[in-house]
Each structure stands twice: as structure tokens, then as C-alpha cells.
């Protein structure tokens, strides 16, 4: 399959990248791993006249720990790097798990977290983990920058709040407090190379190993035009002692937050039922990790 013709830019500084974006705006697309963009271009779904690679922009491919309080993840970091990171697996578990389930190794070696978020596919692997980790996205342009909570980032299938002159530069995630644990589950047909029919990320924070839940976050993908936080289900959990019944109920409430569609991958009815099951399971796994939290 041939790619359409385009002009290629490969800035080596962030300033140059932003300047190019400023000048070319809507005619340009940002290229990171290419696993989404190049597919869209080959399928002629997208036909930009300019492509700006950010591969040589310094810092975009780094995971930077912030003294245990937080982590900054460059938008160009690949899924493979995220899956490999012990820090992420330890403290930001849903993200690391999701990274290891995206596509397959050759895809993971190219696909970037920034690209996955900016493409805003409803079934994408990274949005739910970023949402339960309350990631903040740094968007820069030639004229300024802004920090956007990931919850406010998605607007619809393939749509985000990024302006044509803006670049998603990095994600900032505060380290969850002690006695936190999280997980991520995706439901697909195959065990690799899959696009989720439903995916769920969850984070739980306990007061202590055997204490009540003090914070809970659940995010669901492929069940609405954008990934969604199940706030009502979270509210149900906070302050309660964790139990299977409680998690079951949270799943049931979670369904109410979704508006899945029927498509060739699955029906609305089945998706709703799976939201229930997977939410319960994901919470159960998150709980197990929270209980065994280590300083």
C-alpha cells in the first residue's frame, strides 16, 4: 500500500517543532510512532500535506521520575518502554499493564503514548489508565502552553482539545498515595493484536491494608464516544470497606455511565454486561495490589 505524497519535517528542537506547527497548523500532522497516522494515511482517511516527525525532539522519549512524588512521561515514549518500566509497574500499574497489551511487540516498539492519546480512538489502550491516574497533559504551542487534565482532553472519536498549532509534549502523573493499587483489563477476541471491545482501568487507595477505600477511580473505554470515568461508581466505593458485593455493585453502577454502541465487534447489550464483569474484576485486582502496597 502506498502512502500519499507529503512534505516531511524533522525538527530537532521543541521550538522548531512548535514553530512548524504554528506555520502549518491544520495542514500538518505530528508523526511519532506512525502506527496510527501512517495507517490512516495509507487508507486515505487522512491526507495531510505536511508531516512533522517529533522523533528527534529532545526529551520527548523520556520517563523522568520526580523524587517519588510524580513522574513525567514524554509523549513520544513507546508502549514497549512503558511496559518495561519497573517504576510504572510498581506505582502506575494500570499504565504499564495497558502498555504491555497494546498490539504486539513490533507495534509496541513504535506506538507512543502521546500518539495513542491524541488519536483518541474510543477503544485505545492508554486513555483509561491515564484517567484513573489523573494524568495532566502538557500542550505547548509557539505562543504558550497549558496543562490539561486528561479527563478534559477527549471530545469524541478521533477528537481532542488539541489545537492545530499545539503539540502534546508530556504527561505528568502524581504518584498515588500509600496503599494504592491499580489494574487494567481489556476484552478482545485474540490474546494479541487486539482492539478492545471493552477496556477498564481502576485505581483504589485504602486507608491501610485492611482499611476502607479512601479513593477510587474507574475509567472505561470503547463504551462511549470518548473514554469515560465512572464517577458514580467511584462515589459508591469511597468510604466503604472493599468486598466482592461492593465491586459487583460498582460494576452495575458503572454501566449506567456508558453509552456503548453496537458494531461488528460486539453489541451494546454485551458490552454493558462486560462493563459490569470487567469493572468488578479490575477492582478486585486493584484491591489485591493496594493491600500488598510497599513503601
Amino acid at each position: 500500500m502506498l502512502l500519499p505524497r507529503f512534505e516531511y519535517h524533522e525538527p530537532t528542537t521543541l521550538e522548531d517543532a512548535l514553530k512548524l506547527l504554528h506555520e502549518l497548523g491544520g495542514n500538518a500532522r505530528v508523526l511519532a510512532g506512525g502506527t496510527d497516522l501512517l495507517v490512516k494515511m495509507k487508507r486515505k482517511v487522512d491526507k495531510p500535506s505536511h508531516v512533522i516527525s517529533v522523533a528527534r525532539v529532545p526529551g520527548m522519549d523520556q520517563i523522568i521520575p520526580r523524587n517519588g512524588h510524580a513522574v513525567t512521561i514524554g509523549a513520544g515514549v513507546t508502549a514497549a518502554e512503558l511496559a518495561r518500566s519497573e517504576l510504572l509497574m510498581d506505582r502506575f500499574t494500570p499504565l504499564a499493564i495497558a502498555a504491555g497489551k497494546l498490539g504486539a511487540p513490533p507495534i509496541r516498539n513504535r506506538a507512543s503514548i502521546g500518539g495513542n492519546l491524541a488519536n483518541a480512538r474510543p477503544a485505545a489502550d492508554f486513555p483509561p489508565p491515564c484517567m484513573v491516574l489523573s494524568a495532566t497533559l502538557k500542550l505547548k504551542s509557539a505562543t504558550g502552553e497549558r496543562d490539561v487534565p486528561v479527563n478534559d482532553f477527549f471530545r469524541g472519536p478521533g477528537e481532542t482539545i488539541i489545537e492545530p498549532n499545539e503539540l502534546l509534549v508530556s504527561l505528568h502523573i502524581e504518584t498515588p498515595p500509600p496503599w494504592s493499587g491499580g489494574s487494567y483489563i481489556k476484552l478482545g477476541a485474540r490474546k494479541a493484536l487486539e482492539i478492545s471491545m471493552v477496556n477498564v482501568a481502576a485505581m483504589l487507595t485504602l486507608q491501610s491494608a485492611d482499611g476502607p477505600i479512601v479513593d477510587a477511580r474507574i475509567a472505561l473505554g470503547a463504551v462511549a464516544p470518548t473514554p469515560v470515568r465512572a464517577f458514580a461508581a467511584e462515589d459508591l466505593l469511597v468510604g466503604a470497606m472493599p468486598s466482592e458485593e461492593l465491586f459487583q455493585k460498582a460494576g452495575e453502577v458503572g454501566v449506567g455511565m456508558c453509552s456503548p454502541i453496537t458494531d461488528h465487534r460486539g453489541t451494546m447489550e454485551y458490552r454493558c454486561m462486560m462493563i459490569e464483569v470487567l469493572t468488578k474484576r479490575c477492582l478486585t485486582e486493584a484491591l489485591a495490589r493496594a493491600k500488598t502496597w510497599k513503601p
Partner: protein
Amino acid sequence: MKTLIQLTVNGELVEAAVDANRTLVQFLREDLELTGTKHGCGLGDCGACTVLLDGKPVNSCLVLAVQANGRSVLTIEGLAENGKLHPIQQAFVDKGAIQCGFCTPGMILSAKALLDTNTKPTEIEIRTAISGNLCRCTGYQKIVQAIQTAAEEMTAKEGS
């Protein structure tokens, strides 16, 4: 407008002027005549075009040739040395891991990337490592066995 790129392919420095929309698989197959890298789907779905880019398996149909500028590419042609098969290739031959052979180059390179970082992989690690390389012929079993055998061979060689 063409861009001048310089990269290492199978250990040799290559310089070329390429169009921006030229993918790495096109560049390798058509410009360098390295047709061992196969073209199976063009969309990153099958893994037939897998090459190692700086040691990591990637779908070369989803990498622009210009993106490989300054990097190192290993294709299946770069594996055998002086006409002697690499232990992974030899194991694929010996264990019956090859039928139609169209997934084989990508499969072997994915296996190499695995064994370069993990000398004693478990079966599930092997299956995960090749999970982006579809094979319609073998049911994967003999491929997994070949990679296990190659791992043993390579470890034994290291030790001796």
C-alpha cells in the same frame, strides 16, 4: 523533494535519497533489493515485514525510510555470517518451523530480538515475542520449539 538519508543496513553504511512517503519496507525491498523482508499487509497487522530497528522489531511498512536516518537496520539477509546460518535460522530449518516461509524472516528477527535480551525465555515469553508475527501454516508450535532450541544452542555456545 527527496531527502538524503544515511543508515546502517546489516552492518553496512548506506546512503540514499528517498521520497518522504517511501516506507522502510519499500526502501529495503525496492531500492536495496533486500527482498527477504516480506510485504504482507501494509498496515502493521501481520508482521511479515518485521526488521530490527536499532535492535528492536518493528513493522517496516509503518516506518518511513526517512525515519530510519542515522539508525541501524537488521534484515534477514544480515543474519547469516559467511554463509553459515545463525543458530536461530538453523533451528528453524532443523525443527520444521518453516512451511511457506513468508512469515519466516520476520519471525526469525522477532526471535532474535527476544534472545538478544533474554537468553532463557519461557514458552509464554517466546509466544508473546512472536505474537505480532502471524503464521497461517504451522500453528506456531514448531516455531516455538525452534526458538527454544536456538536459545539452548546459543547459551551453550556462550558458556563454552
